[in-house]
């Protein structure tokens, strides 16, 4: 939905700063002297209680950015801080819940013992471990797989195991890199519910994903990255309904087809009772819909042609992506 949301508007400017990328850059150098700029001059802050999405095409620098945040890679320039501390120092002191893009768990371990191991490392008291393991096993539907070796798990189950280990402890910060990769539609939906349940005023969640629909639904803001640079930060809400830009919606009517042009003179018939209409604000859209319904039409659905995020993503990255 072009222009409807405010761009870069943090969810709450008064909330405490949790993660800060300050002018972060990463250059990979080969032995032959060639260099590749993976991330350039990246600055961004994430506040307490926020769910921040990170979107970008393949090779945009999302995973490099997360690796720098976890201290697995040192930035060539700039710093990453968590709660005012060097990011790695914070993690070694407090830990975070992290789901990596590649689920790398020793294939010889059994699913349950893998969770027990991670719980031990996470510092969960011995008496609590089995309760926490049972909780994440139930939450992610791994009960029938808990005694299987990791190598015997399917891609989707492995992804769920990866997510389970990230949720073992009640972490203040969660970083999920391509969390629904390999999940079927049922578990993708379940994942969204789990993340919604994880939302808490004192918790910060970062989600890197190719799935714009998922980020649109879950994130408060989405940082769009391309070629290692932050292109823009998009707020996924609808705080600012006024816009000068035209936005297209697809309107589906159950009845009252003859009334459409009285309200939307420029409506295009898309067939099967569907019409494409163009408005300049949510206020205009709602007023027109009220008029249409008032005249006796029955509206079945109203869907933006492109989501807020998709529109912004296309503008930031380019239609070719």
């Amino acid at each position, binding site marked *: 939905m072009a222009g409807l949301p405010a761009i870069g508007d943090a969810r709450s400017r008064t909330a405490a700063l949790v993660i800060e990328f300050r002018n972060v850059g990463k250059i990979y150098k080969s032995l032959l002297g060639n260099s590749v700029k993976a991330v350039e001059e990246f600055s961004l802050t994430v506040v307490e209680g926020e769910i921040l999405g990170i979107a970008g095409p393949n090779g945009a620098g999302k995973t490099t950015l997360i690796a720098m945040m976890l201290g697995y890679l040192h930035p060539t320039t700039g710093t990453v801080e968590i709660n005012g501390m060097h990011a790695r120092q914070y993690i070694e002191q407090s830990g975070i*819940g992290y789901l990596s893009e590649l689920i790398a768990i020793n294939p010889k371990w059994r699913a349950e013992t893998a969770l027990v191991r*991670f719980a*031990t490392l996470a510092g969960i008291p*011995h008496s609590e471990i089995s309760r926490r393991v049972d909780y994440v096993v139930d939450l992610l539907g791994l009960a029938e797989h808990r005694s299987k070796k990791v190598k015997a798990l399917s891609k989707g189950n492995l992804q769920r195991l990866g997510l389970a280990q990230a949720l073992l402890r009640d972490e203040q910060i969660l*970083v999920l890199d391509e969390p629904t990769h390999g999940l079927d539609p049922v578990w993708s939906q379940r994942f969204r519910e789990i993340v919604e349940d994880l939302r808490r005023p004192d918790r910060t969640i970062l989600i890197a994903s190719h799935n714009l629909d998922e980020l649109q639904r879950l994130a408060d803001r989405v940082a769009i990255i391309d070629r290692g640079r932050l292109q823009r930060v998009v707020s996924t809400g609808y705080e600012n309904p006024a816009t000068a830009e035209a936005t297209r919606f697809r309107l589906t009517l159950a009845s009252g087809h003859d009334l459409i042009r009285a309200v939307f003179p420029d409506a295009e018939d898309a067939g099967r009772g569907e019409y494409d209409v163009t408005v300049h604000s949510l206020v205009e859209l709602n007023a027109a819909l009220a008029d249409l319904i008032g005249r006796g039409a029955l509206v079945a659905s109203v869907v933006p042609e492109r989501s807020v995020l998709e529109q912004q993503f296309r503008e930031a990255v380019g239609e070719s992506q």
Partner: protein
Amino acid sequence: MNRALSLARYSPWQFRDFALERGAAILIIGFLWGFVLIAPMRIAIGSELTANGQASPLWAILLQGVSAIVSLSVLIAVNGIVSTDRKLGYYRFLFAKPVDPVLYYAQLFLVAMIGVVLSMLVLAILLRTIVPIFSIGNFILYVALIYVAMGGIGFFVSVATRFDWVSLAAVWLGSRILRGLYGPKDDWRSKAVELLPPVHKLDAVATSLISTGSAHVSDVLWLLGYGALFFVLGLALLRWGSLAD
């Protein structure tokens, strides 16, 4: 919960991994190698060593054999101790937890040392049934020394490179060859090879330590110091380097 305590609670898991993935291999290889070495002279060995003790030429052969088994065991124990986690990406979940990688791998090094010592203890007990003059205590002392000396370098190599067993074998054998070639000469090369790992001292230390339980202090210090130095350098590289590079 205290982070150091959490890490200490993880050590049984590290030991379990060692036992299943490396300890079993060390025992099997050590047993088979020992069997191949000792079986042909099994009948002679008892009477010969009983009669002549450590003066017997069989004793020297035996020491060469057990020394080689110890070196191989250390190589198996430290091979990939850090690099495997980096190559296969296991570090990602491990170190998102409140864990210091430096302490994690230092503990793993110690756990592997205990594993090697226990494996060698089992083999030494078996050997002792055939060679009663073989001192288990002296042998274990030698194993611990070689673990620090060779394992320390292996640890560093595993942090610094992903091809650690090849690198460690090359360093170990290369040092022997270069010291053999240039050590006796009286030029800059003889001084340069002095910087290489003191592998030339191994034979003397093995003979002395396993036979008598003592060795030249300077030789022991050279071996221990060299290994400890590289172990600390490996920890420093872990602290200041990148796990994901």
